[in-house]
């Protein structure tokens, strides 16, 4: 029954193996991470000094838009799906994903979606230039012709995400090893189960809103056109009904990753497992009723403002519970700080800082000053870069020895960490200052009082970019060789994935393990 991988390119094209598909997802997302990173560096290079130096404002807007879209849909989401593919079957003692052929398809449509999106850069009129939030009517009546390609690319990405989510739910609910009750599942599995439900709930909403745009653009409907009786604010409500859960889609699996890593290096079980599960569920629930806090300045009635302000502030409670649990897990442990732990500790600190600015943004009257400034840019990069990106990086260092059987180079890993950590803070911390001092986001040129901090931010961005090249080098070197990893890799780590050999064989758990 057991057989190895097929030979040549057909192994990757036709594979239904969760490990192969996970690998492809991870490499794809890294490629998109570099592409989105190049867009970010174009932005930071232009903003290095006041004045227009490198790009025209029209192209600058294409860069901010493409950076956001590629990072959200191309880098972060596929990376977490890749981790889910590799890890969930091994963590729950299943031989593979529940729907392996759909798994193949949900990966293989992604490169087409992003090829289509990237090709808009070469079209007449340029790529989408209306921001990753694509507010109508800038993205409909006033959009470049390439918006149609953008819409279809989003449709394909959405289809891929929905299929991935269905697969993950089916796998977790049906394929757990005997004895693994829901409340015994590793937290990474729990957070992904909840994330998958979020995906199924909101990706169709995104598909709906882009379809309405398509109708407005090509079939003379007026969903978002005030002149035809439509409503531009409706667009924002529908978009953010997708958009807010979407940001939790990008952070809940990160919570899961960190909840796996910190106990291993604190040599102590996770504190408050049950409360972590409940906190994650509460965050997921709250994510559906806070969307309009992205729209405090749109002119909602005061009752709406108050409701969304209170609901948003409430998110601080379950999020706080998670942070306190991680710190208590570390408390009176016996800690070591290998690369995955460094990234996880930085995650806890910097994500908490992003949480603080989030709490500040929740205060509606203060948000009238923060809204659409660099303070917001600082906030969401503090939750997404040390949140999503650092946790993905931590996950790669933590499980890479299990995946390829070799240990990575620890010195190089730590160098990568410190470069990324310093680069990130140099880039994003000054953004709080210029935002509070009055710099709007999404501008290609700025007033002179913002010059100093922008220069620092730009230098930090290039340092952060350089760190990722080191990461790529370290991962390739580890795959090609290095010290052999033991089956456990770390000291007494929790979880079924550490009971199989390193590297994990092509097929694992063909016979389900017994979980006590």
């Amino acid at each position, binding site marked *: 029954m057991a057989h190895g991988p097929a030979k040549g390119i057909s192994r990757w094209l036709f594979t239904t193996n969760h490990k192969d598909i996970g690998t492809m997802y991870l490499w794809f997302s890294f490629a998109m991470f570099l592409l989105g990173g190049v867009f970010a560096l174009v932005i930071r290079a232009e903003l290095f000094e006041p004045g227009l130096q490198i790009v025209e404002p029209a192209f600058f807007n294409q860069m901010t838009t493409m950076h956001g879209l590629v990072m959200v849909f191309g880098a972060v989401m596929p990376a977490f799906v890749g981790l889910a593919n590799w890890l969930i079957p091994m963590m729950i003692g299943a031989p593979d994903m529940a729907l392996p052929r759909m798994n193949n398809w949900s990966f293989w449509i992604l490169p087409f979606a992003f090829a289509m999106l990237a090709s808009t850069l070469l079209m007449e009129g340029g790529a989408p230039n209306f921001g990753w939030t694509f507010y109508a009517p800038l993205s409909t009546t006033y959009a470049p012709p390439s918006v149609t390609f953008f819409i279809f690319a989003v449709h394909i990405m959405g289809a891929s995400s929905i299929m991935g989510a269905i697969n993950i739910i089916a796998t977790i609910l049906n394929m757990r090893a005997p004895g693994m009750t829901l409340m015994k599942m590793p937290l990474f599995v729990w957070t992904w189960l909840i994330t998958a439900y979020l995906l199924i709930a909101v990706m169709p909403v995104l598909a709906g809103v882009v379809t309405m745009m398509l109708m407005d653009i090509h079939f003379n409907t007026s969903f978002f056109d005030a002149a035809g009786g439509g409503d531009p604010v409706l667009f924002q409500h529908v978009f953010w009904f997708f958009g807010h859960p979407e940001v939790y889609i990008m952070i809940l699996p990160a919570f899961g990753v960190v909840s796996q890593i910190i106990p291993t290096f604190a040599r102590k079980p996770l504190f408050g497992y049950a409360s972590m599960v409940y906190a994650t569920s509460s965050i997921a629930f709250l994510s559906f009723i806070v969307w309009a806090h992205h729209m405090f300045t749109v002119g909602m009635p005061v009752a709406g403002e108050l409701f969304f302000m209170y609901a948003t502030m409430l998110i601080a409670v379950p999020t706080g519970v998670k942070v306190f649990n991680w710190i208590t897990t570390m408390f009176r442990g016996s800690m070591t700080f290998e690369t995955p732990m460094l990234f996880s500790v930085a995650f806890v600190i910097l994500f908490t800082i992003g949480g603080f600015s989030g709490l500040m943004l929740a205060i509606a009257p203060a948000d009238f000053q923060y809204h659409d400034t660099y303070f917001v840019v600082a906030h969401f990069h503090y939750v997404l870069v040390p949140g999503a990106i650092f946790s993905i990086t931590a996950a790669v260092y933590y499980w890479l020895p299990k995946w390829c059987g070799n240990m990575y180079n620890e010195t190089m890993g730590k160098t990568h960490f410190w470069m990324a950590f310093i680069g990130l803070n140099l880039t994003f911390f000054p953004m*709080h200052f210029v935002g509070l001092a009055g710099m709007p986001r999404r501008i290609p040129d700025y007033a002179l009082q913002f010059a100093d901090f922008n*220069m620092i931010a730009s230098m930090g961005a290039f340092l952060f970019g350089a760190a990722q090249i080191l990461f790529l080098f370290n991962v390739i070197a580890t795959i090609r060789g290095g010290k052999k990893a033991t089956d456990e890799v770390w000291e007494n780590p929790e979880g079924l994935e550490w009971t199989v050999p390193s590297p994990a064989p092509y097929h694992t758990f063909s016979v389900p393990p017994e979980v006590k």
Partner: protein
Amino acid sequence: MFIRERRLFACLLVLVTGLGSSALALADEMAEGVERWGVNMTQGVTPVSRDVYGLHMDIFWWCVGIGVVVFGVMFYTMIVHRKSNGAKASNFHESTTLEILWTVVPFLILIVMAIPATSSLLKIYDTDEADMDIMITGYQWKWKYEYLGQEVSFFSNLNTPLDQIQNRAPKGPNYLLEVDEPLVIPVKKKVRFLITANDVIHAWWVPDLAVKRDAVPGYVNESWAYVDEPGIYRGQCAELCGKDHGFMPIVVKALPQDEYDQWLDEKREAAAAIKALTEKTFEFDELYAQGEKIYNSVCAACHQPGGAGIPGTFPAIKGSPIATGPMQAHLEMVVHGSSKNPAMQAYGPQISEVDIASVITYQRNAFGNNMGDSVQPIDVLKFKQGK
């Protein structure tokens, strides 16, 4: 390995100090009177802006306090409970008391924050009993101010020279934050702003007034300001609105009541004078010279200073079938806008007949178009009236 890490740290230190010194080097090139290294929100000049600043600082200090406790415990444990210090791991992993405690305490802090935030919000939303109303309309990429009931209205455009933006001239202290005609308001009056947009969504933001409201086509949003001190307050569009989103600043000039009244009278007289000019017949050179000014402030953002446009996005004026074709079609395009491309607005209601006549004359004769003809303001008026 330890040495290697220390060396790495030294390299990073050098890099950080390098950043600092190059930022200082920037100081020499900067214009006088620019307030640098600003790190915080302005307190502003209205009761509301001071309220907002107070809320901002309160929530900030709460965050700092929580941060000190949380990170304090975290760093303590990271320093003390290390394997290399011989720390032995304990095995505790549950405490209902703790979980309840750190759910309830943050909740109480949130309630303490929500009370002043609610009262500020209610105050901001109370737009009743204003002393005067100003209609603000966002356009790609300029603002229109209409003093309701006063018969005064005008557009406000960026007037930073292109040479400064393209680094051919030194930048002034108000680089990108200066306009040809500021919004003028009286101090110590409740001024209500009615905010809307003509094309895409914009947002009208002046930090010193703590007013930021989206300008949404089809909606009229309300906001207000009561400015205490005379002065000039600068802001920018805060919602991505297309190519020149970064180039549509806002300048508010707050004047004592008597000076404001005087300004209002002058504005009315100027408007009457412009109306009278519609009847006048202009020389070609007068029209051409005025047209060049109007072209650069109104048309050049899209059609570019040289008239070449941006291929695929904004058509060229140079050699265009409209600028080198029949006059009627040219008037149609400028007065009523393009039916195919919404970015080409209807300028009929936006600029005076004199300016329309001038800019058309300019476009037909500049950039090598050399049509040799011109149009008079009175013809524009007749065209508008359908004659």
